[in-house]
């Protein structure tokens, strides 16, 4: 008995227009969430290295909780759980952005902490010895150098978060995977459609990698 399986290129290409509407959703959730996550990361990352225990402790708790629990559980908690607390529904898009924000925020906090701590002590000493205040030393000397070192791990986190949005099909956001599932339900061409879905993620993440590589090249002048 002969089993033949044909990859149906025509079916794959036919799915493209049905998948494309998922891309703006994927991008909106990823980059919306990452933008907020970046702000969270700066705040909590700096709190994490503060000399004050009062600031350090909440940052440690936040980072441990959101790094230590699965993002799928986090988004389910936000979408199905939080409304019970708040007394009103949260729309799926907001829940998705919030989940990426708090999740990436925890990882970015550690990236910020690592970046700042990687700057040699002498940089701070030289700044202070010139009469710069601690705030000025941070703003003009420490942060610009730390930020450059943070670019590669931030890029990593961006790529991870983009892929994480694929889980949000479970709350019904119309992102890439969800669009694929809807289309497959009528055509039964799972192989071709998921292949195309994968390609689209690859296109997004690869573009981001290229962009970051450019940034790194330019940002690293004088390092």
């Amino acid at each position: 008995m002969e089993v033949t399986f044909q990859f149906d290129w025509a079916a794959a290409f036919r799915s493209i227009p049905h998948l494309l509407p998922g891309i703006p959703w994927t991008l909106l959730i990823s980059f919306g969430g990452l933008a907020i996550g970046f702000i969270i990361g700066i705040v909590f990352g700096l709190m994490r290295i503060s000399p004050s225990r009062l600031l350090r402790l909440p940052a440690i708790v936040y980072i441990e909780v959101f790094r230590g629990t699965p993002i799928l559980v986090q988004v389910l908690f936000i979408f199905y759980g939080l409304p019970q607390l708040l007394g009103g529904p949260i729309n799926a898009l907001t829940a998705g952005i919030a989940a990426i924000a708090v999740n990436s925020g925890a990882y970015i906090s550690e990236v910020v902490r690592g970046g700042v701590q990687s700057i040699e002590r002498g940089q701070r000493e030289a700044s202070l010895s010139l009469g710069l205040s601690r705030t000025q030393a941070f703003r003009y000397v420490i942060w610009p150098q730390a930020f450059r070192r943070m670019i590669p791990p931030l890029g990593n986190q961006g790529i991870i978060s983009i892929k994480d949005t694929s889980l949000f099909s479970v709350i019904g956001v119309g992102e890439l995977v969800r669009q694929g599932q809807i289309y497959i339900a009528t055509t039964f061409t799972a192989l071709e459609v998921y292949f195309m879905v994968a390609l689209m993620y690859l296109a997004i993440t690869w573009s981001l990698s290229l962009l970051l590589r450019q940034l790194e090249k330019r940002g690293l002048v004088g390092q």
Partner: protein
Amino acid sequence: MTQNENPTAPIVRMEKVNKHFGSLHVLKEIDLQVAPGEVVVVIGASGSGKSTLIRCINGLEEFQDGHIEVDGNELTPHGKSGRALQKIRTEVGMVFQQFNLFPHLSVLDNVTLAPMKVRGWSRADAVETAERLLERVGISDQAAKYPSQLSGGQQQRVALARALAMEPRLMLFDEPTSALDPEMIGEVLDAMRELAREGMTMIIVTHEMGFAREVADRVIYIHKGEIAEQAPPEKIFDTPEDERTRSFLARVLKH
């Protein structure tokens, strides 16, 4: 700028300064006065506390008890000096062993940063001063480069220009040539020699004994956190009184 009313009043006055690192007693009852225009060289074995001593003067190290006064500003123990410390740092320049230039800024921006942000100078004024100072230390043609593109000796001269741009009343040098290749030590010492000649008050921690003998008004030998002996260079190098000084010099001057 704080100007002492009496021009010969000491610019640095340390009285019974003690510092501990945990159980280690790094500075013991340090008494030291430095007059304006004086060049003081501090020598001693590594770990003797000589770097720690000068780092206390601009508050990079805390001390536990005693008295430090710099140009009329008083430092308090346990690093709680606040505004006085800020003021001291504005008036006291420092050159580090590892240069500590800002790698993300051009040579010119390294030198103009503090005058603009701390003194509030305009960019034009800061650039003019920076160019003059870079010229003086012999690197005016490298102003647009980044520190990593310079040799060690050039970097250290930029670091000197950076400190001088704040028009300090006192300069501290923490082993300024120890991280340099031998062929670059001379150019840095030349720049420092020039500065001494112009009357800058300087406290220099160094292992360059020949240089110490030549530029110092006074040499201080530190042994295990204590000032064991201080005297003019000829005296301390040729006829040291303290047994500890003699044995230290015998070790370092042998080669």
